[in-house]
């Protein structure tokens, strides 16, 4: 009979993996598609000289660093 704790651990790991892929993948593919299909949208100014094209990589990079820490921590907690 499978160990229920192991199964829960496994499903928790899968959900953190799915969350990591969904958050980063969707933003990346969304940015990539919009960049290729609608270049003028990127030049929209947000504040000062900062445009969508500058903010997008910055937001994506920050999100990746944050989700990577959470992903790794979730793995370590389950291992403990």
């Amino acid at each position, binding site marked *: 009979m499978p160990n229920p704790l192991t199964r829960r651990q496994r499903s928790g790991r899968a959900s953190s993996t799915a969350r990591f892929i969904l958050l980063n993948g969707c933003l990346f593919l969304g940015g990539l598609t919009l*960049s290729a299909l609608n270049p003028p949208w990127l030049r929209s100014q947000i504040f000062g000289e900062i445009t969508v*094209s500058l903010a997008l990589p910055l937001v994506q990079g920050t999100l990746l660093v944050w989700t990577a820490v959470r992903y790794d921590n979730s793995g370590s907690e389950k291992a403990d």
Partner: protein
Amino acid sequence: MTTMALEAAAPVLIGHGTSQVLTIGFCMFLVGALFLSLMADPERDLVSAYYRGERPLGTLRNAFALSSECIPAGTIIGTTGTIAVSGYDGLFVTLSLLLSLGVLLLVAKTMRDHGRFTVGDLLTRRAESPAVRIAGAVVTLSICVLLLMFEIAGVGVSTALLFGLSGPGAQQVLSLMIGSLIICASALGGMRSANALHIFKAVVLAAASLLTVALVLHDFHWSADAVISAARRSSSFPDRFLGQGMSAVPGASATTAGLDFIGLQLTIVLGVAFMPHIVMRINTTADGPSAQRVVRHAITITAAFCLLAAIMGLGAAAIAGSRTIATTDPGGTSALLRLASHLAGGASTGGGAWFFVLVACAVFAAVLAASASFTLSAAASVAHDLRSRRKRTRPDEGTGVVAARWAGVGVGSLSMVLAVAVQGWNIQFLTTLAMAIAASTVLPALIYSTFWTGYTRGGLLWTLYGGLACAVVLQLSSPAFSGTAFALFPRWHVNWYPLQTVTLISIPAGFLLGWAGSLVSRASDR
């Protein structure tokens, strides 16, 4: 690096005063770096010590080394240059590089748990067979030889430029001389030497990048808005600089340009994580969780570098002029050295010359460290996968290390001869091709091996050889190889494939071939 572009930039970069300081500083650096590499030679002739280092590095040091592996010299020069010339397109390349580490984070634990030294070890988890090891070695050698060629040809060009020499003859001699030193040092030292070089490179690169960024921001009174505004205004197309499409090939349709942009980003995101030297680096960690922890820290370090690269790229456009750089060098490969030269106070200054030397040394350290990793990966695949399979018995430790050293010298020499032969040609596409091969072969093989129980040895071989053939054939049929002014062979016309990048076709082909190969081999077994 584009030879003609750097040659065109040479008179601007090097003044007489700078040249003397540069020669002294550079020679001191060269001797120091090679001495460091030889000092790091493993104390014991053990195969695992040669391929993985004597003992696992600490998490942070390994993260610095991994981050350094993901940012070779071509990337440092290429990304800052692309940002300077193409604005947003370059920024997205930097982002894709960072995201490739996100992909690596997802597979790091699996890679470490099932890997030992090489790509061949990783792939034989599903089917232990000499044919799979040979296929893994063929893929590894294809990638490493291409990358080594690019780095060695580049080091000849940039060193000739730094010494104020010009012409293919001088570049070829310098490629041979420095290439030989690099290959001997890499082959002797193994992973311990590569570790030392990568950490050394990371320190020098961080110092040079931080100083450059500080000087750029100081020039614009610490106003990011002023840097961005000046960069945009210096472009030939200020309105398009911060939008997608500046890096598109002249004359390409909007659809082709859009597909090429998407293809390039996917190549980087899906290719870098599966390169043989990255697989070897992951195998230097103690276990799966440690590998994941190392990648997580490497993401933070690489993110910091990407931010610095973005500021340096925009700074190069703002100070050296995006239009000026693009006129002599459409790829922007001279942008970083031009920026350093401007910040050092111009071509003939003596005072700022040491700053220029620091930047030049950072670039050279990057070449040295990257070459060491590529040589080691290639040597491991020959000595560990090909040689041990041929002998059918496990060789003893001493002969294993000797074989790896000779394999490193052999593969390095081959790459060096090829690099000298193509000196002066536009070989920029080789790095993209290497990433495309990794994404079209190792990625599908690893995903199928992990998630599909029906994946067979036949499917694995179809994936590896089919993905490799598809990527190479499409690249040889692309406008990067022939038929356009910027191609390797502009007068040849075999460019029936319309895109510069191949992964939009070759990655799905790798997956399809793996699936078809598994079905066929299972049917023939019945």
